[in-house]
């Protein structure tokens, strides 16, 4: 309850200095690890081996072979995101309907796999799916299989969905759980059965969660390299795999191509973020 005039001016200034000092590490972090790398990506994407400006790298990215990989990556990411959404929404919804004291426990269970490194999780999935893996052993018991799960679209999509599903559930859950129960009651009161409550009130009000969920699954899915590489033994290449190969070739020209690919991917992600956010802003969309 300090009135502005009782605060001496020098003190206020000193507080400003303290704030600046406190913010400095964060600012430094942002510059060193976020802005600088991005600047480098842009720099290498638009220069040749001698450091001269060129758009050759960008042109190269849009050549047929890379373009096909890019398309495939987008498709995989879209499918994985769609499956995650279809699985996650009912799950998140069901969790909000549980007793309040059980909800954190379920969320905890959902988070648990995230404590394990993505690489290990993906390797484990691979071992499960192998032709003489656990799943096929189980299938053999009931005289089925063996099924060759690996090296298929199914395996890669499964890997993405398995790894990124929590990123979809959490934002949707956290929005759903905050919806005022009185709004649900108001909808029921005005004549909504439970399906209509979901379509006309709950879902529109949870759109922001859906959109951040989509973003949080789509972005890592489109740029992943490890999931596709390990679940297809390197046979299915996604844009992330290509970038990884190019960058790790220790060859300046390839380094430039890799940077150009990263740059295009960044632009792609930015555009998709922009589009999904625009969609979210469009208020009042009634979805039955």
């Amino acid at each position: 309850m300090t009135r502005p005039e009782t605060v001496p001016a020098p003190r206020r200034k000193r507080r400003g200095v303290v704030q600046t000092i406190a913010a400095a590490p964060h600012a430094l972090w942002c510059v060193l690890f976020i802005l600088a790398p991005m600047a480098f990506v842009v720099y290498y994407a638009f220069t040749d081996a001698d450091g001269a400006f060129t758009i050759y790298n960008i042109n190269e990215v849009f050549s047929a072979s890379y373009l096909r990989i890019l398309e495939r990556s987008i498709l995989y990411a879209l499918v994985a995101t769609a499956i995650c959404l279809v699985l996650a929404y009912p799950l998140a919804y069901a969790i909000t309907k549980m007793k309040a004291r059980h909800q954190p426990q379920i969320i905890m269970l959902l988070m648990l796999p995230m404590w394990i490194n993505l690489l290990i999780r993906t390797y484990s999935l691979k071992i499960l799916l192998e032709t003489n893996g656990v799943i096929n052993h189980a299938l053999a018991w009931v005289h089925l299989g063996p099924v060759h799960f690996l090296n298929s679209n199914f395996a890669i999509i499964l890997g993405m969905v398995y790894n990124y599903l929590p990123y979809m559930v959490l934002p949707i859950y956290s929005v759903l759980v905050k919806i005022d129960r009185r709004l649900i009651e108001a909808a029921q009161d005005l004549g909504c059965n439970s399906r209509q409550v979901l379509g006309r009130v709950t879902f529109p009000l949870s759109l922001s969660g859906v959109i951040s969920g989509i973003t949080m699954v789509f972005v890592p899915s489109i740029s992943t390299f490890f999931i596709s590489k390990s679940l297809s033994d390197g046979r299915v290449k996604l844009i992330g795999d290509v970038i990884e190969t190019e960058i790790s070739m220790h060859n300046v020209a390839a380094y430039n191509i890799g940077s150009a690919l990263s740059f295009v991917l960044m632009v792609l992600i930015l555009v998709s973020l922009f589009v999904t956010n625009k969609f979210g802003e469009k208020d009042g969309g009634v979805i039955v």
Partner: protein
Amino acid sequence: MSQKLIELKGVSKSFDGEQVLNNIHLYIRDKEFITLLGPSGCGKTTTLRLIGGFETPDEGEIFFEGRPMTDLPPYKRPVNTVFQRYALFPHLNVFDNIAFALKLRHVPKEEIDEQVHEMLRLVSLRGFGDKNVATLSGGQQQRVAIARALINRPRVLLLDEPLGALDLKLRKDMQNELKNIQRQTGITFVYVTHDQEEALSMSDTIVVMEGGRIQQIGTPTDIYNEPENAFVADFIGESNIIDGVMKEDLKVNFDGRDFVCLDRGFGENEPVDVVIRPEDVDVVEPERGMLRGIATSVTFKGVHWEIIVDINNFKWMIQTTDYVSPGQEIGLYIEPDAIHIMKKSEFSGMFGDYSSFSDELDELSDPDTPQAEAESDDQT
């Protein structure tokens, strides 16, 4: 006005083992304005939610025009609700909030337009259709909530502390407006409030509740003039409640002397609670008074002075237009029709002494929004 529209028979309800409603019997007549009045936690909101279908009773039945509706879900009941704090849909504008129920029933667009504009006119919000509900003031949101509920043409409108969040001036205006809307539409209003003034000025019938039970049902004048027990007498207006003994019909003894009164039908020498309203006492010279005492505090209230008088260590509240100075000895003159006799009840001795009285305490024990009650509902 005489037909029973809704009837509650022997309704009880508990939350987490705590009994909120205890054997409620109540009927609501067609086209009446009925108010459920009581302090927070008395069970009034739960009663309303039972009628709305948001809770089911543990025991008892609820009937609509004689047919049981206890198990009907909210969307199948011919009632609509104006929620405490409005519960407007934040993703819809004013028009779409009001049109919500009609769109649900796939009413043709022209008809929706016409009816929504009719509703906007009824609640004096013409031209507000395109506004975002978040940009509206509390009073405007309140009107949207009323319009949204009325457009369904419900037989009964349930209102849960609808004016609780508004400031005093706006509340008075809205009281009149609600009463007008009720007269114009002929819809039965079931109104929940903890504000006794609001209840007295708006209602055809008041149901006073406390501790999950109905304490009294009656017209505002009945409730005020003939309170049934000390709780009702204290909750509705100000009351001095004194221990007395009914000597015989028309004669009561308290403070060591007999008074003539208008009550009869009590047992001979039956202990009773005597209610005397502060405005019904005349302040006279000490020697002319039936009772005499010292004025311990005098407060200017605008229309009158509020005097606390100590009579035999019992503090009375008197409202008078004559100035009395603190410390002065005064006499009190009480007409027979100023005396109201009540049977002894569980509330006897709990109310009606102004020893610990202060305006501030009164405010504290009178919260604007009975959140506690609403929260206990949330747990189911």
